[in-house]
C-alpha cells in the first residue's frame, strides 16, 4: 500500500469516526495545488528521518459544516472553534502519517498544528519535495489533503 492510499484510509477513518461524515476521493491524486480562495488550511510539520508538512485545505463553507458536525453544534461563522477543529484534523492526520513513516514513533517529531486562512493565498513548497494532493468530497463539499516530503 502506498502512502496516498494510507492517507485516504486515515482520512476516511477520522471523518467517519469523529466528524460523522462519509468521504469519497474526488478525482485524481495530483502533485500540485492551485491558489486557494476563501479557505482555511491546517498544517503539521514533520521533522526527523522524514521532513515535510501535512496539510488539509478546506473552503470556509466546508470548514464551517465540518466543525459543526465535529462539535455537534451549529457553527456559522469563522471563530476559534473552526481554527481549533481544522488544526486538530491536521494533527490527527499528522499522527497517522507519522505512524506510517515511523512504526516506533521516536525518529519523527510532529510540530504543533498551525492554521492559515484568507481570501486568497498560495500554499507551495520552497524546497524540492515529493508531493501528493488528494481531493476529497463529502456532504459538506470538497476539500483536499496533501503531504510534502523533502527528497
Amino acid at each position, binding site marked *: 500500500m502506498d502512502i496516498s492510499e494510507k492517507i485516504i484510509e486515515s482520512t476516511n*477513518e477520522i471523518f467517519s*469516526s469523529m466528524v460523522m461524515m462519509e468521504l469519497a476521493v474526488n478525482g485524481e491524486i495530483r502533485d500540485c495545488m492551485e491558489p486557494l480562495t476563501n479557505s482555511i488550511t491546517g498544517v503539521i510539520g514533520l521533522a526527523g528521518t522524514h521532513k515535510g508538512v501535512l496539510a488539509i485545505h478546506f473552503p470556509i463553507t466546508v470548514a464551517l459544516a465540518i466543525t459543526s458536525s*465535529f462539535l455537534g453544534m451549529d457553527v456559522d461563522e469563522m471563530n476559534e472553534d473552526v481554527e481549533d477543529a481544522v488544526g*486538530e484534523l491536521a*494533527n490527527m492526520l499528522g*499522527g497517522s502519517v*507519522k505512524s506510517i513513516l515511523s512504526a516506533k*514513533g*521516536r525518529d519523527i517529531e*510532529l510540530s504543533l498544528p498551525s492554521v492559515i486562512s484568507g481570501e486568497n493565498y498560495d500554499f507551495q513548497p520552497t524546497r524540492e519535495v515529493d508531493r501528493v494532493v488528494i481531493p476529497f468530497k463529502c456532504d459538506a463539499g470538497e476539500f483536499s489533503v496533501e503531504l510534502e516530503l523533502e527528497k
Partner: protein
Amino acid sequence: MGKNVLLVDDSSTMRKIIGRSLRQAGIEFDNIFEAADGLEALEILDKEKVDIVLSDINMPNMDGISFLKEKATRESVKNIPVLMISTETGDDIIGEAKALGALGAIKKPFTPDKVNEVLGPLL
C-alpha cells in the same frame, strides 16, 4: 460519591469531543475538569479531587510525557491514574508513557465504543 475526570489536551475541540464520547459511551462523571497542557493539569490536580486523567501527549508548554514525569514526583497526586489519548501511538512513546505510570493509550481518532472498551474497566 461520584467520580471526577480531568481532560488534558491543547485542543478545546478535542476536549469537547472526549467529553461527548464519555457521555455517548455511558460513562458518567460528576465533574469534567479541563486543562490545555501539563502545567494546567498539575494546577488542577493540586486543587481538585480527580479520579482519573485522560491526557494528550503532543502539547505546548508541558507535553504529556513531561506531565507524567512531574506528576510522579508529587506525593499527593502521583497515584492518580492516567490514560493517554493521542495521535502518538508509536511503541517507543507509549512504552515511555507506560513506564512513567500511564495505564494505557487510546489512539485518535477514536469512537465512544473504543473509549468505553479501554476506560470502562479502569473505573
